[in-house]
Each structure stands twice: as C-alpha cells, then as structure tokens.
C-alpha cells in the first residue's frame, strides 16, 4: 500500500510521469478528458504543473485540444497523425487544423487567413509547405475558375466544388452528356415502339410506353458506359434535357411510398414522343436560313436576283 502511495507521490514530482499519467487517462477515456478528470485523478497536482504538462503534450502534438459545452477537452491524437506533423511548427499545425475542419468542401486561402489571423505571406509559405509534404491539395472550384480551395489530401471533393458527375477536372464533359442523352432517348423510343406494336387497347399502349426514372437509371447503370456512379437525380437532369429537345414528355403520378423509385409519394414517368409538325415551309427555302437576310433587298449588293445561296439551292 505504502509503496503504491510512494510511487504515486514520486510520480507527482516528475513532469514526464505526469504526462504519461495524463496520456493513460486519455487512453481510458477515448472520447476526451476534461480538466476535472485529471484533477480527480491527481488531486495533489498543482494547477501550474498540470498546465505545464498539458502544454508540453500539446506542443508535442500528442494531445488534441477540443472545446465542448462544459469546458475544455483533451484527447489523445492517434499516432499516425502525430508522425505526420513531426517537424512542423505551430503555425502549420494551426493551418492544417483549419483545413481539416473544412471537411470536403475545402476552404479558400482568404478564409484561412481570417481564421488563423496570420499574414498572407506566412499563409502562402505554409500552404506550399504542406502541399509539398502531400498533406493538403488544392482543388479548382468549378463555379469560379480562378478560385482554389484547399482540403486534405485524401478527401474526395464535394459535388458543389467539382460540379458533380458531369465535370471531370473542371471540364464539362459534353460528350459524356451527349452519349447519355442518346442512350436514354433510344431506350425510351424502343419502349414506345414496342408498346405501339403490341396492338393492345390504346390506354394499355400508352401506359406501357412510359418508363419511370428509376427504370431508366437502372438501364443506364447496367449499360456501364459511365465511369462515375450516377444517381437518379443525374438521370433526371439528362431526361429533362431530352424534354427540352422536344423528344420526350413527362408526367408525374402519385405512387405509394415505398415503391421502388418513388420520391415523396410521386413518380416521374417519361415517354418518347414524335414531333408535332414537319419542319416548317420557311426553312425549306434559302431565305429562311440565310445569315444576311436583313441586308438583302432588291437593287443592293445582296439581292434575290444575285443571291448565291439561291443559285446553289436551285441547282441542287
């Protein structure tokens, strides 16, 4: 008994022992310990010594300082991250922490400056340093192409920064969108054809020519033309472009919650349609498509009598 006591008392005077004790406490409570807990454990430790030990551990990067509603929390940092920060000084650690907090949305350099109160030159140096150590990376935002946001190296950028499935490296992938567009249209068109050929009653025909957005999504996933995973919302944006092309029409029906593909009790149905009219008469003449239509009048340099487009068209 006395030995333990002596040991404990012996521990108290040694700062290293104090630190170890604190670390052990942290191990015991992985979610973090408060000042109160340390005090309870080492009742005879003077606050000054305690503060010194905690500061030492913090500067060594072995403890994480967090704040919660009841006060300050100390948490043990895992060894991996501690090894990373070896050799970095406080400022870098601060910047690193700020970037980490930003999660996968990333943070702009100006915002880092505000949060850390460091001058711009310092920030830039630190950022370059961290980048060379491969701890953070810069991701160009798709919204403003000059803006660079910083985030941790191994994090996936959020959709709002990269633009989602349609952007690869800040470039809008128009071919990809075109391919998807055509595939969806072909799927809907073939479904409509099959329905028309089935020669059943018109109501059944029309209903069978509809495809829900869920079906289209499944079809596209199975086709496997996309390297990226596409969600149903993505497919719906593609289907909307088909509506704006005038090739597809959409209706919304009420669906039971829980049926596959229903969102908020509704389902969107799409079906391929034909054009309402043939290309109109005006565009069958050269004048309908003429780029200099406004400048053309009789007696001018550009006139119907001398029109080269008409000559070509007549000889066609």
């Amino acid at each position, binding site marked *: 008994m006395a030995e333990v006591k002596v040991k404990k008392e012996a521990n108290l005077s040694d700062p290293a022992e104090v630190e170890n004790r604190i670390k052990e406490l942290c191990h015991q409570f992985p979610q973090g310990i408060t000042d109160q807990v340390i005090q309870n454990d080492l009742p005879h430790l003077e606050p000054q010594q305690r503060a010194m030990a905690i500061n030492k551990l913090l500067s060594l990067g072995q403890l994480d300082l967090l704040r919660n509603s009841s006060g300050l929390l100390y948490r043990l940092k895992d060894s991996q991250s501690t090894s990373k920060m070896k050799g970095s000084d406080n400022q870098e650690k601060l910047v690193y922490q700020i970037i980490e907090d930003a999660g996968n949305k990333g943070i702009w350099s100006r915002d880092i400056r505000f949060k850390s109160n460091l001058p711009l030159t310092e920030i830039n140096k630190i950022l370059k340093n961290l980048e060379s150590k491969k701890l953070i990376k810069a991701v160009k935002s798709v919204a403003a192409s000059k803006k660079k946001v910083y985030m941790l190296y191994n994090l996936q950028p959020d959709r709002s920064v990269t633009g989602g499935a*349609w952007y690869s490296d800040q470039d*809008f992938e*128009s071919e990809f*969108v075109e391919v998807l*567009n055509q595939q969806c249209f072909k799927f809907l068109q073939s479904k409509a054809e099959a329905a*028309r050929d089935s020669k059943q*009653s*018109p*109501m059944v025909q*029309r209903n069978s020519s509809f495809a829900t957005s869920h079906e289209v999504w499944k079809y596209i996933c199975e086709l496997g033309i996309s390297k990226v995973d596409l969600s149903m919302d993505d497919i719906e*944006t*593609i289907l*909307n*472009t088909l*509506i*704006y*092309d*005038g090739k597809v*029409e959409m209706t919304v029906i009420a669906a039971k919650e829980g049926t596959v593909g229903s969102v908020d009790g509704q389902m969107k149905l799409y079906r391929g*349609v*034909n*054009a*309402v*009219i*043939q*290309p*109109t*008469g*005006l*565009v*069958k*003449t050269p*004048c*309908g*498509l003429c780029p200099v*239509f406004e400048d*053309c009048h*009789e007696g001018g340099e550009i*006139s*119907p*009598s001398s*029109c080269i487009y*008409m000559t070509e*068209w*007549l*000889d066609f």
Partner: protein
Amino acid sequence: MTAQEVRLCGLLLHEHFGEVVEKVGTHLLRSGAQNLRTIIHETGLSVDLVKKSLMVLVQHGACLFSSGRKGPGSPTEYRSGCDRILRILRYPRYIYTAKTLYGDTGELVVEELLQRGHMTMSGTVKTVADRLTQNMEEGRSMDYSEVSSAFSKLVETHFLQRCPNPAAGATPAAPGTPAAPASAIPPTPESFPDCYKVPHMTLVGRGKRQLAAEDGEDQRNAKRQKMDSEAHGDEGIYWQVNFERFHLHFRDQAIISAVANKLDQTSSEIVRTMLRMSEVTTSPAATCTKPLSANEIFRSLPASYNIPRPILDQYLTLLVDDPMEFVGKAGESGGGMYVVNLHRALANLARATLESVVQERFGSRSARIFRLLLRKRHLEQKQVEDFAMIPAKEAKDMLYTLLSQNLVQLQEIPKTPDYAPSRTFYLYTVNQLPTARMLLQNCYKTVANLIERRLFESKESKRLLEKSQRIEAILASLQASGAEPEQLTEVEEMITAPEKQQLDALKLHINKLDSAENQVDETIFLLESYVNSTATSTG
C-alpha cells in the same frame, strides 16, 4: 401594313393584273383611303386607266369604296387592304382543296371564281361546262346540271358565298326619309340572310366544245351572243369565294395532321370527325368548338373505323390527357362532352413552327435553349447552362446569337434603384406572340424574294424562251397541217442541245421557286391564324 407586306402585294398585283393596277394598288395601300381625284393626281396616270384599275380591284374585292369622310355628299373614297391581296398567294391551295373535296368540277368552279372575282352562277356554270367539255373525248359533253349541283354543294358547305350588295349598305339617305345612316363599315357577306342560298336558276343545256375550224367560229359567235342575252333568273346575284371558310378548313387539316403525327391515325380520325361535326356550328373566331358528346361522336365515326365504344372512350381520354391539349373535356353528360381547343392548338402549332425555325437555322442545341426558355419563361444565364447541360462558353455564344436575331429577349430586374450592371439580374425570356409576328414579316419578305428571283430568272432567259415558243408554234401549225416527220425533226433541231438543257434547267428552277412559295405560304397561314386568334381573344 408593313413595308414587306406592301412590297409583296405589289409583286402579286403586278403578276396577276399588270403594271398599272400594281401602281394604283400600291398607292392605295400606302396612303389609306383616297378619292378618285387624289389617286389620279398622285399616280400620274390617266383617268381612264385609274378607273379601270379600280374596277379590277373592286371586282376582286381588293378595294372597297364608301362615301367620303365629309359625309354622304362628298366623293367616294377607295381603300384597299393587304389581307385580300395576300390571299392571291394562296389561290393554288384553294383550288387544290376544292379538287380533293369536290373533284374536277369543283376545282374548275373555284378556279373560275378566283380568276373572275365576282361572277353569277349561270356564267360560272357555263364557262366551267365548256372547259370540261374541252377536255373530254369527242362526242361527249358536260351537262350543266352536273356543274350546277357541284356549285350548290360548294355553297351548302359555305365555300362560296354571295357578294354583299353595296347599294344596300351605303344608301344615300333620301332627304326627308328617316333612312338608316350610311354605315361606315362595309357590310360583311354574312350579314345577309340569303348569303348561302342558291338562287333558282333556269339553265338547261350542255357544254359547248370549242371548234378550231374557221367556219364554225362565226356561227359560234352568233350563238354566244344569243346565249348571253338569255336570262337565267339569277341576274344581279354575284358569287365570290369564301376565303374564311377555306381557312377554317386548312386550320382543321393542320390540327388533324398534328394529332396524327403526335398520336396515331385513329386519334386523328376521331378529331377529324369532331371537327367535321362542328364545321357549320362553330363561329370562325371561337376559342373551341361546341361541346360534343361521346355518343354523338361514336355515331358519326366513319363506317370504316369499327372501334368499340369503350375503346373510343379510351382514345378520348388519351386525347384529353395529352400535354398538347388538342381536346378538352367540357362536362360529363352524354358519356362525356368534348371540345376541340382551337386557339390552344393554333398556339401549339405556332410554337412548334418557331422551334423548327430556330432548330433549322441555329442547330439543335440552340433549339434546346429556345424550348427551355419557352417552358421556363425567365432564366438567368447560369440556370440556362445548368438546365440545358451545355458548356458555359457555348451556351453563352448561342444565347447571344439568338439575342442578336431578336428571338430571345433580355429582361432586367434591378436590385438597386440605379441600374448598376453588377447589381442587376438579367433574365432571358421568349415572348411567343411578338416573335411570331416577326417571323411572319420574314416570311413575307422571303416570298417576295422568291417571286423576284423567279422574275429575274425568266427575264435572263427571255430570248431563249421566246425562241422556244416560236418553235413550238411552228411545230403545232405544221402538225395541224399534216407535215412529214422530216420537217418536224428539222424544226426541232433548231433548238440546240445546250439550249434545250438550259431550258430544262430554267423550267426546273421556276418550278422549284413556285413550290417554295407555296411552302412558305403554309407557314404564313399558321402564323397568321395564330396572330389573329390572339387578337380576337384579347381584343
């Protein structure tokens, strides 16, 4: 009337009636109502010529006269409107429609009336019978009664109507008589109760074949004089073509073909039946036809379409549910009351026309942006890019092109009272009606261009055309007098091969230009109907 319309009217008048009438007509179009003296003074033509041109214009209904501004005593004023003259462009379509509906007889009746403007029934019947007899084999001739029956059928379905009697409308008030004041607006044909009544006509006979022989001519002339002096009981009753009725027919056809394109044949047959049933009961400016019950539609379907009643109901429901809203449901009695939404159908067709023009002119991506703006009304540039899934740079380019062509408008919504550009929302929008009007003017200009090009082409090859005509005349006379084959070939060889080629090419060009005019006229018809339908519904 816009400059383009006046230019087109001038060209049409020139082609159909000659230069003098063109001069008078365009002058009237530009200057509004004028009396005879002013016209003579300003056009610089002689009194005689002006009078004759005015007669021609009045005969064709292109010019209306009424008593002058200062009251019943002042000289009559003449005014002319673009619409009637622009109808000349559509004559081939009218004649073709009459042919499809009433056969050759109907076609010729309509053609005669279009050429003459106003004619009595007896006169028309005689001329048409003569023409038909011309084309029949030897020994057969056309009976007047057949032509009369075709004429009556045309009147029954309102394709022909009586000309309004100008004397009844603009009676100068006799002093002391409390007569109705002279109306400022010329009476419409419909205001007469007898508008569509066929007069009792005593006309018996057959068509006369024209004989080429000399001796027959004098005899014929004498006979003709005698025939003309016979009264047939319908003096003073003149008939004209009812353009509005033809337009209603074209509109119905457009709706039916749109339904056939969008849905299927059976649906279009149903719509055709519905429109046919409401042909004479619906007024021209109506928004939709009178409600028809499903039972009536079922009974009136053509016998070849043997669809059972429940299927018909399904088709009707599908038509009502279609986003194009061709057919609407107006009630539940009688198995469901259905109407055809005429104005909405016209608006949809006009919108499809606009979209097709944008698509052909600027490409399918611009068409996507155009349709997007039509649907969503107002959008910012960023939103346009997102919805249409077009890269930002290209979308910007296309939007600016459309803006420069005035197909798309920019709406500014300021955030601050000073319209600072950085603090204003700029929204893109498409207004369907003004855009349709603009395209309509473009169509007029296009048709005028095509006509001018056609005249230019014929003028270029005038010499060649004259030569070929002379040779044809020589050939015809040689053949009639029974020449030998060698003489014929000798004459034919007077046209060299390259000249023949040139002639063929010229013929091809002129045909192409002609058919192009008709195609543009179809667009003109759709857009005009749409613009007129909105005017009546809002005005």
